């Protein structure tokens, strides 16, 4: 058995939880019923005190670790973190991955079928928020009989959910690991989201979000949205190191793929457009835009965190310009203002925002050290 498979959670399978009690959303709409698809790794202990929730970012889902079959090319999206003896050790913790509402991997979303009409939700699926996600995740915990999470962990948009958990359910969270995140998006960050959405919405195949009925998808728009995203997830230096000005062949004086960087972006765009739902992408970016817990407190994040009880680990990456260290420091300051227990690491990394998913030795040592201290 290889080193990798020894540390893997192995073959996993997803489960679906169905909820019949209506969920009132932040925008005032009510979801009368919904499904959440999730995976778990490790064993829930007798006192149910060892549960850790992983919140996913823009394009993530519930498949966080392991494989569905030995022949799967890729493992879950945070497999390098989770498994026996890995930093998030499944010998100790019961780890839950969940696909958020409005997702496109099995939880109720625009591409899923309405229970009554048997038609896709399409454009009628509500605009959900980080707050709604956290409330729905709390329902999942209820369903699993888990009152308190040992920890909630998230990067980027997932970090916003982790932060929101500590605000909305202060008594249900012991530790929050908020990684490469922010207490809200800057105008520049939202601007990237707007360009991505415009690419999708102006695609002739979008049909106001009801493209399912036309048996098509706004592939071109989604592809461009993803290409844009990938540029912002990497640092200039990382792109320089990865591609530089390398050519595929020699200069042809054409608009074909000539530079390696173009090849990468097109590959990522095509891959994503083939597997992700455009309506989900629109909603995920809007959830990012809207999240701003300080808004109801006159812009004062410290006031927004008044009722928080959790202990925090906040991590940022030096070359992350989409969720810069400055934004993480704002969270840290608000936690300090409330005399909460917090440690903050600013990891020296080349890879920009993408660094939070990479198995950098120091970064993983930080998560390992912190999680070893978490009592279950």
């Amino acid at each position, binding site marked *: 058995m290889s080193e990798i498979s020894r540390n893997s959670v192995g073959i996993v399978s997803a489960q679906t939880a169905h909820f019949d009690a209506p969920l009132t959303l932040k925008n005032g709409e009510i979801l009368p019923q919904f499904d959440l698809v999730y995976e778990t790794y490790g064993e829930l202990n007798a006192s149910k005190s060892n549960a850790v929730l992983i919140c996913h970012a823009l394009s993530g889902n519930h498949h966080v670790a392991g494989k569905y079959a030995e022949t799967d090319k890729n493992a879950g999206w945070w497999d390098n973190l989770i498994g026996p003896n890995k930093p998030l050790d499944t010998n100790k913790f019961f780890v839950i991955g969940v696909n958020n509402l409005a997702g496109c991997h099995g939880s109720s979303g625009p591409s899923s079928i309405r229970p009554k009409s048997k038609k896709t939700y399409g454009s009628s699926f509500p605009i959900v928020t980080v707050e709604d996600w956290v409330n729905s995740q709390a329902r999942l915990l209820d369903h699993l009989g888990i009152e308190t999470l040992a920890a909630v962990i998230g990067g980027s948009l997932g970090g916003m959910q982790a932060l929101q958990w500590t605000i909305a359910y202060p008594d249900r969270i012991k530790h929050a690991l908020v990684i490469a995140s922010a207490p809200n998006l800057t105008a520049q960050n939202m601007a990237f989201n707007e360009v991505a959405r415009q690419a999708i919405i102006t695609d002739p195949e979008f049909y106001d979000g009801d493209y399912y009925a036309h048996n098509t998808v706004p592939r071109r728009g989604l592809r461009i949205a993803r290409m844009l995203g990938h540029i912002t997830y990497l640092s200039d230096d990382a792109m320089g190191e990865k591609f530089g000005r390398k050519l595929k062949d020699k200069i042809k004086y054409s608009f074909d793929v000539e530079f390696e960087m173009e090849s990468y972006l097109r590959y990522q765009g095509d891959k994503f457009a083939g597997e992700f739902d455009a309506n989900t992408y629109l909603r995920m970016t809007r959830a990012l835009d809207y999240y701003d817990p300080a808004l109801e407190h006159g812009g004062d994040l410290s006031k927004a965190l008044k009722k928080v009880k959790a202990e925090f680990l906040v991590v940022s990456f030096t070359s992350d310009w989409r969720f810069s260290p400055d934004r993480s420091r704002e969270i840290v300051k608000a936690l300090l203002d409330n005399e909460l227990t917090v440690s903050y690491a600013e990891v020296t990394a080349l890879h920009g925002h993408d660094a939070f998913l990479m198995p950098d030795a120091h970064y993983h040592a930080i998560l390992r*050290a912190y999680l070893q201290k978490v009592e279950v």
Partner: protein
Amino acid sequence: MENNVNITNKENKFRQDFAIIAGWVGFGSKVLDLGCGDGELLTYLRNSLEIKGYGVEKDDANWLTCLQNGTNVIQMDLEDGLSGFEDQSFDTVILSQTLQAMHNTEEIVQEMLRVGREVIVTFPNFGYWRNRIQIASGGHMPVSKDLPYQWYDTPNVHLCTINDFDEFCNNYKITVIERKVITDGIEVSFMPNLLGNLAMYRLKTGQ
């Protein structure tokens, strides 16, 4: 004093400077240790005085050791100031044997006084007679247990004497609540600027 087993560090070695700092920090108070290293002082204060402590440390390895010790630690560069900390939000802010390595010496002391109701600063006294002898007799920059660097690789860019620091406090209208000077763990009261090698100041704003 050396038989006092309660005031020992992890190597079970008595640290007189820690004991003096503990005497200046209130039980259960909120303490910020700037340049906290591996968190040894905060761990000591937590165990002896049940303080709520936070460290600030730039170095990755030290930062990680702090986390492993259970010390809350914020990774940042002190040279950037303390803008992440509110005015008067700590009972005591400590800068232990780091002042001499700071570029913005004046700014960091002012920032400490802004953030802390009281401030503790300790530094190696450059006026210590052994340092003077090395310069006077050998004509070389001093190299010793407390100043273990050569002139060309030292992080200590702002070495000063006790007289210099007294003058600094006077110029900036900083109140010296208490000052202690020690050599090899023993307090020095006679001619401290000559006979003391570690200067320890307890400060607050105003005169």
